[in-house]
């Protein structure tokens, strides 16, 4: 089977790392996988996207419009750039973090309202899963890594969990940062258990 994931966010949120973790789990499982990250020229704070294609050996790296089985967005405004890639009847997971560009902070530019973004996602006929960033859990007084939490939520709320095993994904996450294994396991697990809204 083939399963395409389109990821969008802002540089610094760990979205490329998130994509790489999924790739590792897929490679570990012997699935053919192509991972194409695109980061802008900024070290941090610029638009970032990644295209992950599972289960299609030798395929080109790009996902077609209307083609992504899962769109995974980690920033409210940038989520809009994933909408055209959403497959009708696919999943669209939005972690609604707000990262305002400078012009917005200065009141010189608009920032889309949550309702308008959710409306646009629903308009793609994908199944919306919304995660409020306020749900990001704290462990020992510090917030967990948002990307690992979102990864867990993708397994708990979308059909990604039917393509890869959550248990193996968890092992990949722990092996990636051995000294943070406990923290990340808790973050992943919290994501797995949370239920997003539609």
């Amino acid at each position: 089977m083939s399963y395409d994931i389109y990821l969008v966010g802002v540089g610094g949120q760990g979205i490329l790392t998130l994509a790489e973790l999924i790739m590792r789990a897929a490679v570990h499982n012997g699935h053919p996988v192509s991972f194409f990250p695109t980061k802008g020229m900024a070290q941090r704070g610029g638009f970032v996207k990644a295209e992950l294609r599972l289960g299609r050996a030798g395929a080109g790296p790009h996902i077609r419009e209307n083609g992504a089985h899962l769109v995974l967005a980690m920033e409210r405004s940038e989520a809009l750039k994933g909408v055209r890639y959403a497959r009708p009847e696919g999943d669209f997971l939005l972690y609604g973090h707000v990262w305002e560009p400078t012009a917005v902070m200065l009141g010189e530019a608009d920032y889309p309202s949550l309702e308008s973004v959710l409306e646009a996602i629903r308009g793609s006929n994908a199944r919306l899963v919304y995660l409020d960033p306020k749900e990001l859990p704290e462990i020992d007084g510090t917030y967990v890594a948002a990307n690992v939490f979102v990864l867990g939520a993708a397994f708990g709320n979308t059909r990604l969990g039917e393509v890869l095993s959550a248990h193996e994904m968890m092992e990949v996450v722990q092996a990636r940062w051995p000294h943070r294994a406990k923290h990340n396991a808790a973050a992943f697990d919290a994501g797995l258990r949370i239920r997003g809204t539609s």
Partner: protein
Amino acid sequence: MQIKVLSGNEALAYGALQAGVKVVTGYPGTPSTGALTSLLAMDLPGRYVEWSVNEKVAFEIAAGAAWAGQRALCTMKMSGLNVAYDSLISIAYSGCNGALVIYVADDPGASAGMAEQDTRGFALMSDLPMLEPSSVGDTYRLTQVAFELSERVKTPVFIRLVTSIANAKIALEINDSLPPAERTPILERNIAKYTKAGAAICITQHQDVIARLEKASEVIHEMGLNALQLAEKPGGLGIVAVGAAAAYLEEAFDLVVEYGVDKTEVSVLRTVTTTPFPTADVQKLFAHCNFILALEELEPYLERGLHIEAHRAGFTGRIIGKLDDGPLSRVEDYDVDHVLQGLNTALGLGIPTDHFEGNRAAETLASRRPITVCAGCPHRGTYMAINQAIRNLNLGKDEVMVTGDIGCTILGMNPPFNTVWTEVSMGASVSLAQGYVHGGVRTPVIATIGDSTFFHAGIPGLLNAIQHQTPLTLVIMDNGWTSMTGMQVNPGTDKTFQRPGGHRIDLAQVIPGLGIDQFFVIDPYDLKGATSVIEGCLTLPGVKVVLSRRECAIQATRQGKRAGNLRLTPEKCVLCKQCVTATGCPALSIEAESIAIDPTLCNGCGLCAAVCPTGALEKEDET
């Protein structure tokens, strides 16, 4: 054998090692950079790898090594090939001993923000073979083929990737036992081969280069690199596909099953080159098919070749592509929908438009997110100082030409600085500025350039300005690294990072050696001092050079260095937002009661404090 997750760039590097490459040179350029970076990170006894000062130099070094009988590789982006091209034509005429492979990366979709140049045009102009892998796996295989082909035919060979192959990653099975690179060098004195001494020699060499391309075509055929599959039944559609577009063919065939298309009724030629043109295979396709679909990104080089061959063969069927108002685009990179559009037109499938278009209106609601320099970037101070100097002279921003150049320094074109007006090519800022002066502009003219770009191609422009005493101010923004491509070492990088026994070239010594009177070194973190020097330069006659010097903040932080510490006293903050407006620093944000600083980003450069009117932001120097 072992399985490794590799990008196209890395696959190319491993392919070159597998082919016994001894000398590798290049200049960083997105998306090609990763190939040489991955080689530099390896321990490779008996081989030599360097970032050269520019692509022309890099190419000449690789050519010298190949003339000495070794296998050599040179890497660059498409813009870099333009720089190397002068020598490339000469060396194409001479051919080579050993093997000489040029890796060039094109960028359909311009994700690195330069040009959608299709370098295949250069292969045509130089009569050099150019291999065009369609995937990461193909890259590993064809890189090895490129060396083999080069050595057998005695010609330089291009290998061309595009961004979506160079930067995509897959799990790949590679051979982990590497052949030795060491060969005994040869010294061949052959005036007829290595010089251009007279028309007779040049014309003979021209005949040689034509003959070598012919030979390359035969060798490619003999190696069976092109895959031709003729449908059992003649008379149907024939597809010719090359490069990244070819990777979407199988996926497209899956998608058209529901439109009744049986792929076994379609003939397909997957060619690995446009130059040399796969004439023999194309003729077989013409003899078998009634109409042809050409699949290639960017310019219709393959398609034009098909029209020529069709004419020669008397083939009168339709050729579908980009010419004759065909359905395919000459801009942007391809995905499966482009191939689908081709099949849709060729076979008259009537696929509805909404199949190809998702909800594109949604993203028009997204906030613009212009990129700016990093927190603590020294360039921020230089742009703030230039802007302030212009204001101090009571000049408007639209009255002072500030030319820009390639690299991180170009971010001065974006808000909040809006300082720089032009972006052309490596080093062009310095010469363009002279043109504005001679064009009669009465206000001061400023050129800006980064250190690596200045070493690369800015120096000749400065020599020209000094020779002709053209009045302008050149600001060299020296952060000690080739930063935008991911922190490569350049001639000005600190000695600690140069190769053992390598030498650092200090611009503060080079420039005074040119016989220039007005030379100043400033610290971009010292906004007041920097502004006053630049302001002074704008009123002085002749050539002025300002060296604005501070190490790249990312690299300084990696070495555990901080510029200082910033103290925020929220009670003093009146939320005038001056700091955000002037610096656009990613470490600053606006909270309900006061400005806030992200301590994980701030390196204490103090530029926000320099514009804070209330003293809410203060810089404490590192002791």
